[in-house]
């Protein structure tokens, strides 16, 4: 579990995060949603320790990030898997080498053990025959799956995904969503996903934190988001006519 308490972050005197408190539970897909500029990416980067913050605490299973030594922070990061928006695969390595990278860095496994693990996770993300391809030869969806494979290869306790569906077609986006959800449940990972894809919200949002102007405007789940009458949330989530109709149907069915 990750607990965030009263998190504040500013850039050049402009407060971007204005006291966010929330928890992200183990074995659940936790979504951070909000408009562009709402502070989602800054929040995610604070969670990852890529940005320092002025006030507040982030606790990983009781380990308060800001109080850790540099070595302890690096050890904690070894427990984190991250899927970046642009996948962030290493250009100079093949897909198999990309996935093997965390194992080479942090384990003492033999080459055959590492190879077996790479084969397993690539199979898990349905990429059995892409080992020798370079990232530039892979499609956007494949790159995302490789990024997921790389993120989970070292059995992380925490998985962070920054807009995992951006730039993907709807079908591939659903495949990626389902894959993340399955992996989260299967390995009991604490997964935090930064997204503004409403399909993801409805499909895998077991916990949803809605940010607006650096503040937590709402918190709930894919079930409660249908029922909420918080105007800020409904204006954002049900901005398209399709979702308005879906919500109306849901509320009629469940009234």
């Amino acid at each position, binding site marked *: 579990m990750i607990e965030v308490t009263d998190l504040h972050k500013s850039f050049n005197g402009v407060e971007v995060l204005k006291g966010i408190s929330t928890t992200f539970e183990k074995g659940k897909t936790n979504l951070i949603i909000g408009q562009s500029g709402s502070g989602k990416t800054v929040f995610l980067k604070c969670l990852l320790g890529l940005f320092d913050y002025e006030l507040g605490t982030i606790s990983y299973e009781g380990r308060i990030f800001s109080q850790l030594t540099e070595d302890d922070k690096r050890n904690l*990061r070894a427990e984190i898997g991250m899927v970046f928006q642009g996948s962030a695969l290493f250009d100079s390595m093949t897909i198999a080498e990309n996935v093997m990278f965390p194992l080479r860095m942090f384990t003492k496994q033999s080459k055959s053990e590492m190879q077996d693990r790479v084969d397993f996770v690539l199979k898990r993300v349905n990429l059995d025959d892409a080992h020798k391809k370079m990232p530039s030869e892979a499609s956007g969806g494949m790159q995302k799956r490789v990024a997921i494979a790389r993120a989970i290869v070292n059995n992380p306790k925490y998985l*962070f995904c920054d807009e995992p569906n951006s730039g993907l077609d709807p079908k591939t986006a659903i495949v990626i969503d389902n894959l993340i959800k399955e992996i989260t449940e299967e390995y009991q990972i604490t997964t935090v996903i930064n997204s503004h894809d409403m399909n993801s919200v409805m499909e895998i949002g077991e916990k949803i934190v809605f940010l607006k102007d650096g503040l937590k405007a709402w918190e709930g789940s894919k079930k409660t988001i249908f029922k909420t009458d918080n105007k800020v949330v409904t204006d954002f989530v049900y901005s398209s006519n399709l979702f308005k109709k879906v919500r109306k149907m849901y509320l009629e069915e469940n009234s």
Partner: protein
Amino acid sequence: MTYLHNIGSYFLMIAEMFRKPTKWSVMKQLILKDIDDLIIGSLGIIAFISFFVGGVITIQTALNIDSPLIPKYLVGFATRQSIVLEFAPTFTSIIMAGKVGSFITSSIGTMRVTEQIDALEVMGINSLNYLVFPKTVALMLYPFAIAIGMFLGILGGMAACMFGGYSTLADYITGIQTDFEVFHVIYSFIKTFVFAFVLATIPSFHGYYMKGGALEVGEASTTSFVWTAVAIILLNYVLTDMMLG
């Protein structure tokens, strides 16, 4: 203030580069890859430039001392001194600031833009050690490339003498052996080691701390070339004053 901030950040980067070393088995491969990219990959251009500039120095020296009072072996002597003291260590390094420096800045800068450096940091890897340290170690072999450049420069001068008729082969060989001081070669290699460190770290600094997108990667490469060249010229003056002055 920005300059001071950048200079401070540069030295902090160097200090951070030596912290939390990457696993040796991984580092070894990175160093070998960087030796291939930065040293072996530069030998061709160093050889080509050295050979022909050696020839040009010889021709110009011969034409400028065309007097019966000046012995012909001075052509070889001047060529050797020019190449060993200045051309091979300093001017080749400035050319390398363009080739190797741009490569380093653009490759690290692209990694920054595409969040690959963030990916390393999130994994708990000291990205500066992972990216900059192997380049610095690889470039410590740069003096070997410069030694080849010195040899080929003098050889180029010899070829110009032979085929252009500017002096006899015997005079040229006498010239390159005249008043030979080992310290001049040591001085040249000390300079080269310092320049190698500059060639590895300044372009890395500009790539690592760049912000923006593809356009800024190009700008960072240009800026890195300018500052690497400026640092090499200034350090050349300081080192020459210290060791030969």
